[in-house]
């Protein structure tokens, strides 16, 4: 009974203890709540394969030498010791119980003996154990008293007889014997038990059991987990492996390294990783994807930790791998989705931005075009006026200034025209015209034009192949524009040698679209070549871009807007052709454009004969002009107008007056011939006498007019000198003393302005402030008021406003309201009132406070910026006094 109990307790202790021993720590994750039940299930679990492969010889050794191993053993020992302690304690308790039982028995016996003595006084019944104690005796007596009743039943003899007492004594004797015997047996058993306990010192069996449980537990937990565990020595040879997917036998793995076992992707990496861990001595994790023949593509999360022996030396690694292929795949998928999402979002925003930018660009372009147009009209006026001015009597200095003005104005006009052209092409507004023309004529005239303004010692040549048709149909204006642009460009960048145009017929190029197929069309390739500075290769791509020149340096040196080539390209492409360029630095460039033309039959004399054939008719000095295939021009020396040189106008003027370096006799003659009006119409494109003998100056005049009508060049049309003279005289004649009022507070300004007026042949009245001005205007009908803006008493803006108010309402109420003292009588006012708007020109100091907008807003017609110059005044008077 007692031993059974001990065993029971034993089991309980073990069961609750053993999971603690699985790991090195006492409270690890392997806690099991109902171990007794579990141990039963464990037996039922089918552990089919032996997944663990271990080098059994080395493993104990390993366990002995490593920290982990020794801690395991220590734990087992500790557990065993604990168990033993427990057993000893239990035995002690047992012993205590037994002793107590024995004492009780003895007490009983004593009592019996006492009782007996009390009644019979039998000496032999003296207790063995406690003879010495008198107390005992008393106790015994008491005990006997108590026991009398119970024992009484056994006696069947007559009470108080000898037999009775004998019988009683006998039965008591028997009871005592039995008790003693029981006591002896108990002592015996106790001794025996103690002996067995001592002999039971070896814990091996229990340990083995424990280990078995641990292993069983691990198997139970790990049987379906996708886990590989192992231990490798410091050469990374396997000593132990637990594998969920056993496909290799023990001898295939143990004692070998990863590289020796597996082949394929990831193996090397994992080996390197393990080695790294071994070297660093720090446990770490990594995800490695294996691509092996053995188990295909699988990703493992590998945990590797170094293993030390007791001397803290590295002896190998433990590693544990968990297959996470699916997770990785999912994760990657997620990442990809997220990435896609981000990319899509970025694209979306990019697109929105692009749309926005495009809209902005369109708007900006539209605005540029509008503005250009708006600028062109007044600028034409400015240049035109300047031209008129140049016909008047001027001194040398004035003429120079005027020339600068005209040429600058021309440049701006050219630029604006370019911008307009470009935006027209880009917006698709530009319409192409189909007119008949003679390519040879076009080339010749372009070259002639160029030669006319040539200021360098260059040879211009034209070369047209025989097969080029005499008459073709195309947009001759645009083609001329392209040629002129290319030629002037070539001349600009060429300092010696030649510049030329070459025309030849080519077969249909590959880029031609099929739909425009026409049997009568012909592709003509046109080369514009030069021997100039050339274009570096890296500058070629941006050559046709707007506002770009090959380099900023060139832009500074040669000037120009950088729009020419962009326009050429756009035009060529609009006509279904292609513009290309080849170039070599310092050797020259060749711009080539290929265009399709319809071949026109030369006898097709329709009524809308184009201007160029007209022109040919007009001056046909030589019959072979239409078919001639080669032209050559030299510089027409002393020519005045050159687009290329416009950026340095002063130089241009100096050069135009006399060019000593190029003074050949012939050019001198030309200059003298044209001298009469050349100065006055400098901006008109001088049609040069190509080779001198070919065109007379009269001819050049006709060229000039036809050129102007073609609108090929600047849209500025210049009135002839005779007309200008007429307007000039008209001004003089009509100026039967126009009435001018100057409103100005500064005496010096008044003095200067008055002097200028005098020089221009006018007199004027003076008002010193706005109030005086209003009174003056009321009394006298002026033709023009020059109004200072900033004045004391009343400024020019307010005065103007009041004058305008009078013009509208017919009374000076507003002025009176504003506090102006109107002096004269009302009656005069009515008859003097003029319905015409009085021109009021502001004189501003061009400061922020006196902006031109403000002038216009207050009813002024125009403004002159201060200080007033003779020139400004003259222009102003011309504008308003006609």
């Amino acid at each position: 009974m007692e031993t059974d109990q001990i065993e029971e307790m034993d089991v309980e202790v073990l069961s609750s203890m053993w999971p603690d021993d699985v790991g090195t720590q006492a409270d690890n994750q392997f806690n099991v709540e109902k171990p007794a039940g579990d141990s039963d299930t464990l037996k039922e679990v089918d552990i089919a394969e032996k997944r663990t492969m271990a080098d059994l010889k080395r493993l104990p050794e390993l366990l002995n030498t490593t920290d982990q191993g020794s801690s395991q053993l220590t734990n087992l020992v500790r557990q065993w010791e604990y168990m033993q302690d427990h057993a000893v304690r239990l035995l002690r308790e047992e012993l205590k119980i037994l002793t107590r039982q024995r004492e009780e028995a003895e007490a009983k016996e004593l009592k019996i003996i006492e009782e007996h003595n009390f009644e019979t006084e039998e000496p032999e019944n003296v207790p063995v154990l406690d003879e010495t104690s008198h107390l005992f005796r008393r106790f015994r007596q008491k005990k006997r008293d108590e026991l009398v009743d119970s024992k009484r039943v056994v006696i069947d003899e007559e009470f108080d007889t000898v037999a009775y007492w004998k019988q009683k004594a006998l039965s008591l004797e028997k009871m005592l014997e039995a008790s003693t015997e029981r006591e002896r047996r108990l002592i015996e058993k106790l001794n025996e038990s103690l002996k067995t306990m001592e002999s039971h010192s070896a814990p091996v069996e229990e340990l083995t059991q424990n280990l078995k449980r641990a292993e069983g537990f691990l198997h139970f937990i790990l049987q379906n987990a996708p886990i590989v565990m192992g231990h490798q020595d410091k050469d990374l040879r396997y000593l132990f492996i637990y594998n969920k997917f056993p496909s290799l036998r023990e001898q295939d793995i143990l004692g070998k390294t990863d590289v020796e076992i597996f082949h394929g992707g990831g193996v090397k990496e994992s080996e390197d990783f393990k080695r790294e861990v071994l070297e660093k001595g720090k446990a770490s994790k990594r995800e490695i994807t294996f691509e092996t023949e053995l188990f295909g593509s699988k990703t493992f999360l590998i945990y590797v930790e170094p293993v030390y022996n007791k001397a803290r030396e590295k002896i190998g690694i433990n590693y544990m791998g968990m297959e996470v292929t699916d997770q990785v795949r999912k994760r990657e998928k997620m990442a990809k989705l997220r990435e896609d999402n981000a990319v899509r979002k970025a694209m979306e925003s990019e697109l929105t931005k692009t749309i926005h930018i495009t809209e902005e660009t369109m708007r900006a372009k539209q605005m540029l075009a509008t503005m250009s147009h708006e600028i062109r009209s007044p600028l034409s006026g400015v240049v035109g006026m300047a031209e008129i001015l140049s016909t008047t009597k001027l001194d040398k200095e004035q003429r120079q200034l005027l020339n600068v003005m005209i040429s600058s104005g021309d440049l701006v006009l050219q630029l604006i025209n370019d911008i307009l052209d470009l935006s027209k092409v880009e917006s698709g507004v530009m319409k192409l015209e189909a007119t008949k023309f003679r390519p040879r004529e076009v080339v010749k005239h372009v070259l002639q034009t160029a030669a006319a303004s040539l200021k360098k010692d260059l040879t211009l040549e034209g070369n047209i192949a025989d097969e080029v048709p005499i008459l073709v149909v195309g947009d001759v204006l645009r083609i001329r524009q392209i040629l002129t642009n290319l030629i002037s460009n070539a001349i600009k960048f060429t300092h010696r040698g030649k510049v030329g145009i070459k025309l030849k017929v080519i077969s249909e190029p590959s880029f031609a679209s099929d739909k425009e197929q026409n049997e009568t069309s012909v592709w003509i390739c046109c080369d514009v070549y030069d021997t100039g500075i050339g274009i570096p290769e890296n500058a070629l791509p941006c050559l046709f871009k707007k506002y770009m020149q090959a380099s900023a340096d060139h832009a500074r040196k040669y000037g120009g807007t950088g729009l020419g080539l962009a326009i050429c390209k756009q035009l060529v492409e609009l006509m279904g052709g292609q513009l290309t360029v080849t170039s070599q630095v310092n050797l020259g460039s060749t711009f080539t454009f290929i265009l399709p033309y319809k071949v026109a039959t030369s006898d097709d004399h329709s009524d809308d004969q184009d201007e160029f054939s007209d022109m040919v008719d007009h001056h046909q000095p030589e019959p072979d002009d239409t078919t001639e295939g080669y032209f050559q021009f030299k510089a027409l020396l002393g020519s005045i107008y050159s687009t290329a040189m416009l950026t340095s106008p002063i130089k241009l003027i100096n050069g135009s007056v006399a060019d000593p370096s190029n003074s050949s006799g012939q050019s001198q003659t030309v200059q003298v011939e044209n001298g009469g009006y050349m100065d006055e119409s400098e901006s008109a494109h001088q049609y040069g006498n190509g080779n001198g003998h070919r065109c007379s100056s009269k001819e050049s005049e006709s060229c000039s007019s036809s050129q102007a009508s073609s609108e090929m060049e600047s849209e500025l049309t210049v009135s002839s000198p005779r007309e200008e003279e007429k307007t000039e005289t008209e001004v003089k004649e009509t100026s039967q003393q126009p009435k001018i009022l100057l409103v100005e507070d500064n005496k010096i300004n008044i003095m200067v302005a008055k002097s200028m007026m005098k020089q221009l042949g006018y007199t004027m009245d003076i008002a010193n402030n706005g109030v005086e001005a209003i009174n003056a205007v009321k009394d006298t009908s002026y033709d023009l008021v020059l109004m200072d803006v900033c004045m004391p008493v009343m400024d020019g803006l307010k005065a103007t406003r009041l004058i305008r108010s009078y013009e509208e309402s017919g009374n000076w109420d507003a002025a009176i309201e504003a506090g102006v003292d109107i002096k004269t009588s009302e009656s005069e006012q009515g008859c003097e009132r003029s319905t015409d708007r009085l021109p009021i020109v502001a004189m501003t100091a061009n400061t922020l406070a006196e902006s031109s907008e403000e002038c216009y807003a207050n009813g002024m017609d125009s403004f002159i910026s201060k200080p007033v110059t003779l020139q400004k005044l003259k222009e102003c008077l011309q504008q308003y006094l006609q």
Partner: protein
Amino acid sequence: MDAHVAQLQMQYRNYILSLYQQGFLDDQFTELKSLQDDGSPDFVAEVLSLFFDDCVKLVGNMARALDQTGTVDFCQVGANVHQLKGSSSSVGAKRVKGLCINFKELCEAKNYEGCVRCLQQVDIEYKTLKAKLQDMFNLEKQIVQAGGIVPQVDIN
């Protein structure tokens, strides 16, 4: 005699050029000169004497305005500066004009210190110009007395 005239003329030309180069004068002065013809032979001198009288008056006004203890009437100073600016601009007194532009800004900003400094500069500047132009007129006079013609100076 001719050599003397030529020398004077050269001297005059150089002197005028130096006035332009040093920024005392600008194109407006040329303009002024071009207005002088037989009809008004002393036009430039007249305008300039008017200008310098104006300078004395305006600078005096401004000095008084700025000398006020307590509140300075910057509006009044500004009006005077404006006058001076217009006058100097009209005669082509470049440096004075430049100073006036600054002066006006300072005045609008009510910068007392700046105004006083500027006023002093204007005072120095117009007096310097006056001296320089006096020299110029003297040279012109000498040329005329020597029987020469005052040359047209091309500043370009």
